[in-house]
């Protein structure tokens, strides 16, 4: 019992510290791409703690409850992500549970954003949910193939199986990995798919009415969300790593690739994003699943 609590705390601190520094480094990378020197990499820590010290306004009960539900849901999901050999709940981290627990965060954020009564926020939430329908489908279909092949949908077992078998999923199912990465870009809300927090059009979408401590809470939620989504991708397709450092290295590589792609891409409109996701990634994911289910069959 004590070990799970300690490892849970360790995982939370690791997730928070690592992802926020990574976001700082991402801002530095983007600055370098824009040929300027960019903020120090611990800038995101300063932003979060500064927001927590500021005064703020609230639009009533649902506005607060939604933010707490969002952060609570995301913290709960982080504990199910195995980071290398730091696994908090060994057998119980089922991928479906993770994906749907993540949905609590989104629902909480949606409720509080619309509860603020600002039309920008409602438009942003409408776009976010529409886009979620876009990028979740190919991802889930590819996941179906992975679970069918490895006969298990528990994340830590998947990681162990990939390591013991020696071949990562990226090599067995390259198309699935590509589709997974493209929908990861959608999940993270990186540049080509960040229509729901478009600063110029709808004044940063759902975040329009958040000030002070709400903004701090939501930035930590965004950090945890990034950790969950990229951790999911690394465990599923890159074997999750035998030690924590290997996991963190792979985490950094995936995040680095996502940042590079996102810093030079313009922004999709929502229906373009959904059309894009339902055209190429969906077809590729079906091809991948058909290959896995009918040709490759189960893992021997």
């Amino acid at each position, binding site marked *: 019992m004590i070990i799970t609590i300690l490892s849970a705390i360790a995982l939370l601190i690791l997730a928070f510290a690592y992802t926020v520094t990574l976001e700082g480094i991402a801002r530095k990378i983007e600055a370098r791409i824009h040929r300027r020197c960019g903020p120090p990499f611990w800038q995101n820590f300063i932003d979060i703690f500064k927001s927590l010290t500021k*005064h703020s306004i609230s639009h009533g009960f649902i506005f607060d409850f939604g933010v707490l539900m969002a952060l609570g849901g995301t913290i709960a999901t982080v504990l199910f992500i195995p980071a290398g050999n730091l696994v908090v709940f060994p057998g119980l981290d089922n991928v479906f549970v993770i994906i749907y627990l993540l949905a609590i965060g989104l629902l909480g954020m949606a409720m509080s954003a619309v509860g603020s009564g600002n039309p920008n926020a409602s438009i942003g939430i409408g776009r976010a949910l529409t886009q979620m329908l876009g990028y979740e489908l190919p991802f889930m279909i590819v996941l179906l193939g992975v679970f069918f092949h490895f006969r298990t949908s528990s994340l830590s077992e998947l990681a162990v199986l990939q390591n013991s078998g020696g071949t990562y999923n990226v090599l067995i199912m390259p198309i699935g990995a590509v589709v997974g990465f493209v929908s990861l870009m959608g999940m993270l809300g990186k540049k080509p798919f960040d229509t729901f927090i478009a600063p110029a059009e709808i004044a940063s979408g759902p975040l329009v009415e958040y000030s*002070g401590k709400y903004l701090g809470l939501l930035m930590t939620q965004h950090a945890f969300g990034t950790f969950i989504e990229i951790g999911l991708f690394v465990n599923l397709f890159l074997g999750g790593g035998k030690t924590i450092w290997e996991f963190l290295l792979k985490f950094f590589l995936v995040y680095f690739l996502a940042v590079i792609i996102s810093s030079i891409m313009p922004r999709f409109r929502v229906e373009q994003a959904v059309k894009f996701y339902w055209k190429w990634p969906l077809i590729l994911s079906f091809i991948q699943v058909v290959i896995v289910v009918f040709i490759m069959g189960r893992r021997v």
Partner: protein
Amino acid sequence: MNNEQTAWERVANMLRARSLWMLYYCTGCGAIELPPTMTARFDMERFGIGPMATPRQADILLVTGYLSTKTLRRVIYSYEQMQAPKYIVGFGSCTINGGIYYDSYATINRLDLYVPVDLYLAGCMPRPEAIVNGFKNLMDKIDQGEATGWKDYEANYEWYRKNQIDALGEVYIHDEFHE
């Protein structure tokens, strides 16, 4: 100024100085100076200063240029929507003393009668170097805890409100274009 801040206040000020978020609201001709300060050559972001879309999230309100009575209403409304440790930077001579529009019937001459201004940047639109230097001064002022414009806005609110009513008639106007 009383700058014996508590330890917690000092840390908070240090945080606030390093990460200032600027509101996207450009009122006059000075707004054209901001893109060069943010992009490659002068890069304001290395001080942690970045643009934010809504007053709720912003710390600094940049009043960049002459202020007609209609724009002043929006500036006051946005300022009141911003959250507590907030600062105003007045760009150019039009906010200091009316500038070239000193004798116009439509523009105000002195900004800090209506909203507390923490920093003035001289120049009939200061160049990016002056803006970056100004922001450095503002960051030092915040560090020492002297940038307390928002405190005295709350303290003598009636005085500010009287000035605003004198100049504008009413701040939250209902029928501006006489429909």
